[in-house]
Every structure is written in C-alpha cells, then in structure tokens.
C-alpha cells in the first residue's frame, strides 16, 4: 500500500487549473521530489495529501484512508511552505506543544541537538531570523518520529551550512526507513536526496522517474566557454550568457564544437559536459 497517493485529482482555483488529473503514489522508504516552476501545482498536491485542500475530482489517500483522519496524521510530519509560528511562544514551548501530539515523540533534547536549536531554545519563535524559523519548521516535522514527512521547500532561505546539516539529517532519516515527499527549487537538493523525481507543470505531471531517467530524457551535452562575444551555434537549442561565460545545450556536442571552431570566434576554457538535472528539466519544461 502506498503511504500517500493522489488518484486522478483535479483542482482549480477560479479558472486556473492547479491540478489536472494528477495521480501519484509514494511508497514506503521512498524519497520523492516534486519539481516544477512556481504555480505548477506542487504545493496544491501536498496540501490535498495533507487534507488542507479538497480535490474537486479524484481522491487523496494517506495510509490508505482519508487525510483528515488522526490515525494518518499521527504517522506523518509536515513542514509547510510558508511556515509561521504563533505569537508569544518560545522555541522549546513549540517543540513541547508538538511533542504532546505523538506517543513516541523524539525527546526535546535530542531534537534540539539534531537541528542545532540549542542557542535558540529560549527565544520567542517570531523573533528568530527567517533561516532559523525555517530550521525550526523542518525540525518540527520530525518530532513524532514519523513514517513519512512532507517537506515543502524545506531549505529555502537557509545558508549552505544549515542546508548541508539538514541534508545529512534527511539522509539519516531515509536510511532508517523514513519516506519523504519533497518540493524544492534547488535541483541539486533533488539530485542529492531523491530516489524519484516527479516533474509537474501547469497542474499536470510531465515526467517521472529517477534522476538518471530524467537526465536520459534529454540526451544533450553542455558546451561551455569564455568569449567576449558568443557566435550563433545552429546546433544549440538553449543558450545562457553570464558575463563572458557562455553555456550552450546541444544535441550533438561534436557538431557544436566544430561549429564554434569554424565560426572563428576567439574563445577559451572550453568544456563539454553532460546535461545537469537543471538543464534536463528546463528543456523538458520548454518542450511543453
């Protein structure tokens, strides 16, 4: 049985279709990253799975039952996209409040240590910085020792070291059999953590598969070089310029490089690379 599933779910807000016949399932032990541009329907999908939104068509299931049931809720942990905290509550008080809901909650001390919240424990939650609040919001998802966590953009606004700390915690959780449904704008995060990627755009699932599968869908190569002015490469179907650094995406790298050399342009630092996940996703989204 899938831990969480959407079955042919449609949902619109006014005339805008947030989800259009979406079906997905997250199995035990899986880490699934839902990727897509802003407004693609990622958070709507998560909110329907959590019972925070109601589908107009189709069905959402959490542990095989309605997401509104407390049995299911007691087995999950959640970090909402725009988490906030109530006025006048300290960090340790929020942790205690959350802990009270779960029979096998992780100890306050262990959670504070695992997420480096020690110096913040006596601080009012709303007086923390955005990054610290994000860190607390993520920590709170793991309080009940859940079988599955829903992390909606968990590391947005965090510095590199805080992000690395969370990644290592996620990996440990996954190693211990936990399941994760993750949305993120950081593709390296999806690449580092996810077993499977679901690519969603305009409320529809475009592709899903492992990181390698998604990359394979775009058998393109990156040609990167420095030049004052980039020549036009007919072989390339995507081009980005950052100062004097030019990046081309080409189906056939050999033909692309040949074209570059034949153009007579002065260039340096030429590199030919495999397409990154970002390139693959950008290309797949542009194809739609």
């Amino acid at each position: 049985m899938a831990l969480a599933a959407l079955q042919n779910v449609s949902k619109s807000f006014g005339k805008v279709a947030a989800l259009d016949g979406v079906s997905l399932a997250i199995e035990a032990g899986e880490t699934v990253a839902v990727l897509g541009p802003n407004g693609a329907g990622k958070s709507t999908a998560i909110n329907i799975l959590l019972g925070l939104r109601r589908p107009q068509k189709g069905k959402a299931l959490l542990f095989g039952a309605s997401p509104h049931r407390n049995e299911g809720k007691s087995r999950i942990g959640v970090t909402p996209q725009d988490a906030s905290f109530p006025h006048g509550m300290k960090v340790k008080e929020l942790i205690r409040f959350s802990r009270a809901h779960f029979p096998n909650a992780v100890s306050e001390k262990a959670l504070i240590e695992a997420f480096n919240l020690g110096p913040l424990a006596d601080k009012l939650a709303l007086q923390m910085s955005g990054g610290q609040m994000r860190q607390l919001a993520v920590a709170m998802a793991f309080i009940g020792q859940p079988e599955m966590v829903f992390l909606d953009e968990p590391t947005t606004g965090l510095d590199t070291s805080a992000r690395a700390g969370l990644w290592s915690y996620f990996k440990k959780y996954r190693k211990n059999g936990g399941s994760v449904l993750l949305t993120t704008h950081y593709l390296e995060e999806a690449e580092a953590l996810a077993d499977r990627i679901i690519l969603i755009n305009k409320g529809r699932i475009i592709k899903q598969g492992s990181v390698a599968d998604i990359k394979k869908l775009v058998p393109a190569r990156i040609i990167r070089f420095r030049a004052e002015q980039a020549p036009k490469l007919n072989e390339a179907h995507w081009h980005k310029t950052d100062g004097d650094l030019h990046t081309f995406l080409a189906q056939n790298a050999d033909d692309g490089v040949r074209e570059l050399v034949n153009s007579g342009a002065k260039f340096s630092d030429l590199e030919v690379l495999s397409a990154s996940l970002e390139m693959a996703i950008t290309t797949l989204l542009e194809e739609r």
Partner: protein
Amino acid sequence: MRIINAYIRATLVPLIRTPAYWIPLVLFPSLLFSFFGLQPSQEFPEFAPLMMGSWSAFAIIGIAFFQFGISVAQAREDRWQQYARTLPASPLYPIIGQSVSAFFFIMLALGLLWSLMLMATKIEVNLLQMLQLLAVLLLGSVPFIVMGVTLGYAFPARAAVPIANLLYLPLSFFGGLWVPPNSLPGPVAMISPYTPTRQLGELAWAVMGERPLPRESVIGLLLYTGVFTLLAVMLWQRDESTRYR
C-alpha cells in the same frame, strides 16, 4: 490529559506574555466600577450586591467576547494554523484551551473586582452567593462566547477589536449593567429588556437578591445562543470553504 494541557498552555502563555491584551480586560471592570459604581455602592449598601452582579456580568462578558472573538479572527489569519491542522488532535482541544484561558482571566478580573467591593463598600454577601453568581455568570456567558466567535469569523483581526468594543460597551450600557435599568434614558429603556446583556443581568440580580432565576431571561439567553450558534456555523463553513476549499 497531556495533550489538553499542551493546548491550555499554548493558549494561555502567549496571552500572559501580552499584557496589552489582558491588563485592560482584567482592570477595566474594576476601573469603571470605581468611577461609576463605587460611590452609589457606598451610599446605598443595600444595592451593593446588585452592583456586584452587574459589574461581574460586565467583566465576564468582556472576556468571553474578546477571548473567543479576537482569537478566532487572529487564528484565521495565522499561517501557523496550516501546520496545526496537520497534527493529530481533536478540534475540541483548542476550544478547551480557550475556555480554560478565559476562565483564568475571568477569575483575575472577578478577584480584583470583588476584592475592591468587599474592601471599599459595606456589601453583605456570603460565599455561597458569590459561588452561585460565578456559576450562573459562567453558564450565562455562553451566548457571548458564541457572539464573539461569530464576530471572529465575520471580520478580519484588525476590525474585530474595534467592532468588539463597539458592541460590548453599548450592549453593557443598554443592558443596565452600568446604571440600573430604571435609570436608563427612555429609548434605551425600551430596547433594554431585549438585549442579551439585560438577560444576563437579570440572572445575576436574581442570584444576588436571593430570588429564583427568571425563566424568560434563561429562555432569552438560550435564544441568543441558538441564533448566534447558527450564524457562527454558517460563517465557519464559509471560512473553511475559503481557506481550505
């Protein structure tokens, strides 16, 4: 019990940390009593028990109204609710948290008011009467709680506070809680018997006058409870279908 305790703390602690919320609520009845009720209570000690009923009702109505009304309005705008709804909990727990917090502030407000009355006037009341008054007022505060909840669902948090004041203060005056009903100006005296504050006042005065509770006032308060419960449910459904549709 652990989880209920968590909800009580989560409601009470932030309110205690907001003196701007609770100091006016707790002090206001005693302050107004010292301005308008103290002198008549000293001059006419036989009316002091009735004054105790009036000003105690005024104190309880304020807390019922504000505690539930403002908290509902604020909760509707608080993104924390997104997370809170994903926790495995009965919807009754937050209501219990609010009720216990309201009870705490009611006891503070009444403690202060009653101490002032006992010390500054020659009031003759016994403990049983005071406990009866407390019980009747707590039960009688239900329609005001429901009115507060209705207000909380009807208006955004910023508007809820002034609107609550706009209703709470005139209703108290119209109900004869500040000046005796027979001293109210003509048009106000005509409306007064139909206000919920007057119904509660009648119950409080009956307790303090050692008379049976007037049945029409009990029915009046039940009717107000029914009407406002219906309104509150309709507004709650509207809110749910907007925020969690």
